[in-house]
């Protein structure tokens, strides 16, 4: 039994790391722009399908680099055309827009590539199992953790040490003052949105290796991302990271004892957090959005 539990904790951390990757992108967008991006799952699917389309030309590694960038560019375009007009209005507008956008992205992908599952071939040496005596470790999962670690480190590096990052952090606190200091906040929000969507695209490429590639691939992953943000705390990226890992582990452990509840348990956690500590575990007090 202990072995089973240990397996599941380890496994939960891996799954949680993936949720955290998704949630970080979502959190970035939410913090700076105040937009609840329901289309994040759709961008994940887009990233996965771009990778599928690119692999025959640039191989898996090329697709891993290019596809998130392409997705980020699409995000930039979407922000400029669709989301920018809604800044300053009731957050409901942004929510409705991204909700509709999610359907558009899913149907668009279905229109171009069809509703059936497509075979996504990641490199075979990556897919092989490394050990399943102590825990289920495959080359692919190790690779996934590596990518998540690099991406998260990169993100925190950008936020902590570059001018753009500094401006984003300042903007999440007080965008108006940042704007009066001469920063082009329109560009800032666009870049921030693009960066968030880049993370969705990256998550999409990683997901396609593990899951069946079909238009609804993002659906099952977007809700845990929202829950990760709420549990970890609105306004705190470290909190989001922590929230993702936490719900991954809890969900994995629940499967050992009560599989039917494994999906529901993350919402129960969300409910508990909202009741007992509404700001989230590491969130800032008074943060509304």
């Amino acid at each position, binding site marked *: 039994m202990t072995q089973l539990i240990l397996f599941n904790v380890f496994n939960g951390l891996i799954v949680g790391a993936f949720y955290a990757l998704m949630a970080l992108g979502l959190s970035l967008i939410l913090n700076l722009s105040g937009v609840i991006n329901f289309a994040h799952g759709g961008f994940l699917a887009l990233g996965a399908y771009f990778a599928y389309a690119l692999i025959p030309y640039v191989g898996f590694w090329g697709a891993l680099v290019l596809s998130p960038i392409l997705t980020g560019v699409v995000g930039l375009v979407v922000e400029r055309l669709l989301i920018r007009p809604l800044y300053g209005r009731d957050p409901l507008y942004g929510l409705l827009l991204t909700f509709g956008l999610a359907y558009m992205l899913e149907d668009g992908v279905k229109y171009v590539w069809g509703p*059936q599952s497509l*075979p996504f071939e990641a490199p075979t040496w990556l897919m092989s199992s490394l050990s*399943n005596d102590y825990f*289920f470790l495959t080359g692919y999962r190790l690779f996934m953790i590596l990518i998540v670690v690099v991406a998260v480190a990169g993100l925190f590096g950008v936020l902590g040490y570059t001018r753009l990052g500094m401006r984003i952090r300042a903007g999440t606190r007080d965008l108006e003052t940042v704007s009066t200091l001469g920063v082009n906040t329109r560009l800032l929000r666009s870049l921030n949105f693009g960066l968030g969507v880049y993370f969705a695209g990256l998550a999409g490429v990683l997901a396609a290796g593990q*899951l069946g590639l079909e238009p609804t691939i993002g659906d099952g992953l977007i809700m845990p991302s929202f829950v990760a943000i709420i549990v970890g705390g609105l306004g705190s990226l470290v909190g989001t990271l922590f929230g993702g890992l936490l719900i991954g582990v809890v969900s994995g452990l629940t*499967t050992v004892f009560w599989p*039917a509840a494994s999906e529901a348990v993350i919402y129960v956690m969300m409910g508990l957090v909202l009741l007992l500590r509404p700001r989230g575990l590491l969130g800032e007090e008074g943060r509304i959005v």
Partner: protein
Amino acid sequence: MPNETLAPVVDRRTFVKTALAVGAATVASPYIIPARAADVVKLGMANPLTGTYAAFGKNESIGCQLAVEEINAKGGILGRQAQLIIEDSTSGDAGTAVQKSRKLIDSDHVNFLLGNVNSALALAMAGVSNEKGVLHIDPGGHTDAVTGKSCHWNVFRVCNTTAMEANAVASALVKSYGKKFYYITPDYAYGHTVEAGLITAIKKLGGERIGGDLAPLGTVDFSSYLIKAQAAKPDVILFLVAGNDLINALKQAVQFGLDKKFHLAGALMELEVLEGLPTEARIGTWLLEWYWNQPNVPHLDAFVAGIKKKTGRVPTARHWFGYVGGWTCALGAEKAKSLKALDIAKALQDFALPPEVALGPNKAYYRANQNQLLDTIYVGLAKAKGSAPDDLFDVKTLVNGADVAISGTLEESGCKMTWPT
């Protein structure tokens, strides 16, 4: 408030009033739209076009569309042209499926109702069709109850029951792999019945269930279940999940190297799933309900060509289900010389499909007082690559569904059909 700019801008109140008017029109339309031409015979299909079963629903609708085109080319149904109306039932929302069925029957006045890929939705729709007395064909919803406990005189099913599937594949599983089975089952009607059927059939052959898990429909990450399966140390891990869940589960199982430690197999496999798997995950013993690559079956080439023209790919079992569904409506009406559901239902008792529709080696017929199509089941092995790009299955045994060891007796099905007087 009127807007004084040069560009014509619709003011907010006008916009809201227009939106409400459009919304009201959508709801009120059954009463406003005049009666359609009475010359057309309508088939209404409510199947998933979105969600996790979108690929299956789409393929069934394409198969049915091909059938309707062929029917019209041959003169239609009782001299009248046939028309297929397709609605999206969603992949899992019974409320929408019921609403669309009612819309097809009450608004569009369809003569025939077809659906649903999702077993639970098929049952819900059968309730509506029975209430309204409309002939209903279920092309691809597998749970036993549709032609079992909840059977109705007006509901016919093309695909196999889960009991038939279990009986057909059980002996291949026990013979090839061993006696200790671990089950990964989807937690809904279909999963429960196919697992129950397999447990019984495997027990008769000396095998046993040493453990299992019920995975919620739409599970994305199967690692926890696979971890438990490994700990149980079975001979075979049976994957009873379907569609995308099966792709996820097999992909992950092979990534974990479980195929090197245990046998991986299951019951129902579909070509859509095989096509979506990476080559290293196309393994195991499964059954297909219909396969395109059969030698010496007349008229098969024409069907394969017909579907290839529409989709660019070979037909799957789902195309064939939709095709049989459409043709059953036409052939039943022709035999009964009537469009009345009761007459057609009576004409379809023990009705055998002609070879150009059956497209298989054995006779395919709807068993009387159960309305279940008994036909060939293809048991075999998934293969990574075949002689043709879509040849991903190696048929080892052709099982005859009409054999009572496979179909079970009428009593065993639990169907007690009552006919309206």
